[in-house]
């Protein structure tokens, strides 16, 4: 019972901290580009403002357009509840593994793409088509990377993967190096960050995520935006769990939980800085070069699996 309360508290914490993460990345990026920048808590104000505004629907909008924000948001929240953030061994992470996580993201993306096409504007359809192109290339790479790790840790459950890595003394697995690089590339593509999609752009021909949610207003838009922020946060925590598992609480004692909380914030803090540096240094890629980028991610994950088979198994 205690575990369930903690799991719900953890999910609520994830929900509440997601805008802060996005705001933090934006703020660091502004500072790096010598701009004043909105404070890191600006996304909270934006969301609050959007929730207060009334919803304006296009005349051609179908019910799918109306339910899509709720489905996208709740699928992302469910995905977030699987990922061990502060502690491992919570009941929510025991009922689903990482393949379900990928499935939740796919469900959210499906409805996002449907909603993009629903109203019938040119921008929405274009955005949906692009999103599905990216997703169809990113998903195999992500699964390949995760299977590579699962071969070493003998599990696809996130909590037991993290526990296995925590209990071992420091090891250097070649396959982990490769899947870390591959999953990083996939995470950047899936969360719509800079070499693939520019999160700061509106009304440009290159946008992907913004193009799909262009027709949304009010609380619908707020839910869509919040869902995207959550996704960034979830990917950050996922990478932290798999490649920097130190600090996460392996029991439910208050001290361990506190250490887990501090460590996850520290990891996300550093990840946000490195993401901002990367986004400042790189330019957005031409869309037709995306297959090359994701092909590199796939090759990295494939090499991870091959090097696991060749080098790590005797």
């Amino acid at each position, binding site marked *: 019972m205690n575990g369930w309360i903690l799991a719900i508290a953890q999910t609520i914490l994830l929900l509440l901290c997601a805008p802060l993460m996005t705001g933090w990345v934006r703020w660091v990026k502004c500072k790096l580009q010598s701009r004043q920048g909105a404070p890191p808590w600006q996304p909270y104000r934006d969301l609050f403002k959007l929730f207060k505004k009334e919803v304006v629907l296009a005349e051609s909008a179908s019910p799918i357009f109306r339910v899509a924000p709720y489905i996208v948001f709740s699928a992302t929240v469910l995905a977030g509840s699987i990922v061990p953030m502060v502690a491992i061994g919570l009941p929510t992470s025991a009922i689903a593994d990482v393949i379900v996580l990928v499935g939740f993201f796919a469900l959210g993306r499906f409805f996002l793409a449907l909603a993009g096409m629903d109203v019938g504007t040119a921008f929405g359809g274009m955005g949906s088509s692009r999103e599905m192109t990216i997703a169809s290339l990113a998903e195999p790479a992500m699964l390949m990377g995760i299977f590579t790790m699962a071969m070493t840790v003998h599990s696809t459950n996130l909590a037991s993967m993290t526990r296995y890595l925590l209990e*071992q003394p*420091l*090891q*250097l*697995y*070649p*396959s982990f*190096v*490769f899947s870390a690089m591959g999953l990083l590339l996939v995470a950047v593509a899936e969360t719509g960050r800079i070499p693939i999609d520019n999160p700061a752009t509106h009304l440009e021909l290159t946008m992907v995520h913004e193009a799909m949610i262009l027709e949304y207003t009010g609380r619908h838009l707020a839910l869509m935006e919040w869902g995207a922020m959550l996704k960034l946060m979830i990917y950050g925590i996922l990478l932290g769990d798999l490649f920097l598992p130190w600090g996460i609480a392996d029991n439910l004692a208050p001290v361990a939980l506190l250490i887990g909380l501090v460590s996850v914030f520290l990891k996300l803090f550093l990840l946000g800085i490195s993401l901002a540096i990367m986004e400042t240094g790189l330019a957005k890629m031409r869309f037709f070069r995306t*297959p*090359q980028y994701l*092909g*590199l991610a796939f*090759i*990295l994950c*494939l*090499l991870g699996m*091959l*090097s696991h*088979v*060749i*080098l*790590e*198994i*005797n």
Partner: protein
Amino acid sequence: MNYAQLPLAEQLILTLAAMILFTSFLLLAQTRIVSLIHTFAWQGVLLFLTTCLMAQSSGRYHLYISAGLTLALKVFFIPWQLRRLVIRLNIRRDIENVGGSSMIMIAGGALVIFSYYVALPIRELSELATRNTIAISLAVILLGMLMLITRRKAVSQVVGFMSMENGLFFAAVVSTYGMPMVVELGIAFDVLVAVILFGIFFFQIKAGIGSLDVDHLNRLHEVD
């Protein structure tokens, strides 16, 4: 022995071996000539680090000489020489279109699996903890060969050839702690002479057919 029981230095050697394989794939995919040469230099750096680690962990200090040769030749001299040639031939900004790059990548992956199966019986003969890397070095050689086949420009073919040599050197280091010193010095000087000769050839080809694209060599010119 289980992988998790190996000392950290040997795990690092294996990780570097995997990185060398990765640079081979990068060479295969790289289309810009200058970046190709830089990637080749990075492969040399990884090879140097692996050799140093092998020397340190096995206590065979003559490997440091091989490592030094690698650093001097494959990290500095050859890339520098190739870069100079590329600048003098004025092909710095050339982009080589590699046809069917994803097919080539899949072929590369298949070659890695093939070399794993070929190397399976060989690795039973060796006692070293790094014997698993024989498959990797074979794969590096085969990937260099694949690059020789798929590339059209003379410079990238030379880089492919050199990366094949890297694979051979790597195989010698990880399976038998390097070749005898005489052989190693001989190979090093061969490579050195080869690069200089290739340089002369580049100029000859460029003067003869006006391009470094070796496909032009298939056509006869007497008819017109």
